[in-house]
């Protein structure tokens, strides 16, 4: 699946490397708009803090949740 492909140009003196910084700039450019319209949980912070997936066990026929 492709991702935003905005090109980035970096002009720096030879003694200074800003490659990582340029990657960060490119990554935020597509994210400054209004959030989309869903009514669930945004997992970006959860992923940032604890990337391990949460395992949920749902009892069939009920809404009882056990983490």
């Amino acid at each position: 699946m492709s991702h935003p492909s905005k090109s980035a140009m970096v002009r720096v003196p030879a003694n200074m490397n800003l490659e990582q910084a340029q990657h960060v700039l490119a990554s935020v450019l597509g994210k400054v708009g209004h959030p989309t319209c869903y009514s669930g949980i945004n997992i970006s912070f959860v992923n940032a803090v604890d990337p391990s997936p949460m395992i949920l066990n749902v009892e069939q026929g009920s809404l009882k949740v056990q983490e």
Partner: protein
Amino acid sequence: MRFTPPRLGPGAIYLRSLDSFFRSNGDLIRVAEVEPQTLWTKATTADAIPAGSPAERRHLGSLPQRVLTHGVGYPIGGTICDQKDHISEFRLWNRELSVCWTSEHLSVLHVRAGSRVHSCGFLMPPIQTDSGVRLAAQNIIQRRAALDLPFAFETGVNYFSHRDDELPDGEFFAAVAEEADCGILLDLTNLWINQKNGRAKISDILSRLPLERVWEVHLAGVEIERGYWVDAHSREIDPELVAFTAEILPSLPNPGAIIFELAPERVSSFGERAYLREIEVLNRLWEKVPPREASAPAAPDRRRKSNAGDIGPTPEQWEEVFALRMLPECCRTDAAATYFPCRSADEESFSLYCRLAESFRSGALAELLGNTIHLLLLALGKDPLKDFIAAYVAATPPARFPTDEVVQFQNYLKQNPLPIAGLDDILKFEASLIEAAANNTIVRLTLNRDIDRTLADLAADRIPGPSLDRPPFAIEIGVDPVPFIRAVPEEVL
């Protein structure tokens, strides 16, 4: 008004990250539903009006799909309903993308607290009384006139249980549609969730809807949060919902599009193959849409004849409750809500709404200030970081656009400094990226650390050490005509 939507077919919500995917699958994805506000940028000044870029509009104009627009951020269910600030930009997008109808949420987002207006941070349900019907219908009529385009409202999710003093969901949706003489965006996922959470049976709702007004159907994947099914746009459409949709579609005389929704932060984990499977599901569902009759029978006049049953809170009172329960203490007025209908089930619902709103705010920070958050995580640890973010959310109002959330968080950190080496520089750097992108300007900043090695350390899960300190140096960040970061020569400093 009797608008009959053209039969556009199956499609999906457009995301920038899916652009090339849309372009290479024009045969399967026949509609690109654009949410313009997600592609707009709001400058960091408080009163700035968000806008998109002409280049992106032109880019979207070259998609192989027909384009529909779906508004976010300006819902039509509350007493605060913008009919001015965002309209000219929205009209421009509709015109340039040759949109034949548009839609928005039948929800409440902004509420009054004293003399100020604040975002709740989450789309809240409108009050389902006759006065709520009249309010929504007036808002829709004004919005449609302002946009000069056929308009449909989305049937929303509602995490509250049904109240005795409100109209049943189907009756409410039908009354709004008839009163405003508009279309319905039938979000079957939302209604299915409402049913699974025990609020209302989907069959009851559909039995009361003027089905000839359904112009569009939305479908998405759901998940569980805190014991509630939520509209997370997180995965494939549940097979049970697919089967139900297949039963419903033949009874809809005028659907113009059926749209799959996936949240942007779920795209990478969902994957291309899974996405294609969902699009194929939509194509099979579209085959269930009945052929359009040459002369469709006249729709019965279901206009409500009286205001009987207009009990319960007024829209203003309903929004007072939201102001009291959804806004942080700093934004509330001393006056308690005059109508405070909280049952024990409502407490659980408000707890969920607050949790979801907080997830959007913390998610915006993680997306735009990823390295700052990562440094805080490494330096503080997981639980203290969660506590810090929770304290921030509790002390500041939600922002509509993430750029405002970044500015607000930066100010909060200035007022609540943390003794973490390198935090000032990494926050200053990331906030400057946002400022350059949001304001389309060149931002110059002075740093005291090697920013690239700092970022490399963070990428390797290392707290950047003091060896990265260096004499102050300046860089410039800009985005026009292409994104750039450059060092400023010393003689210019």
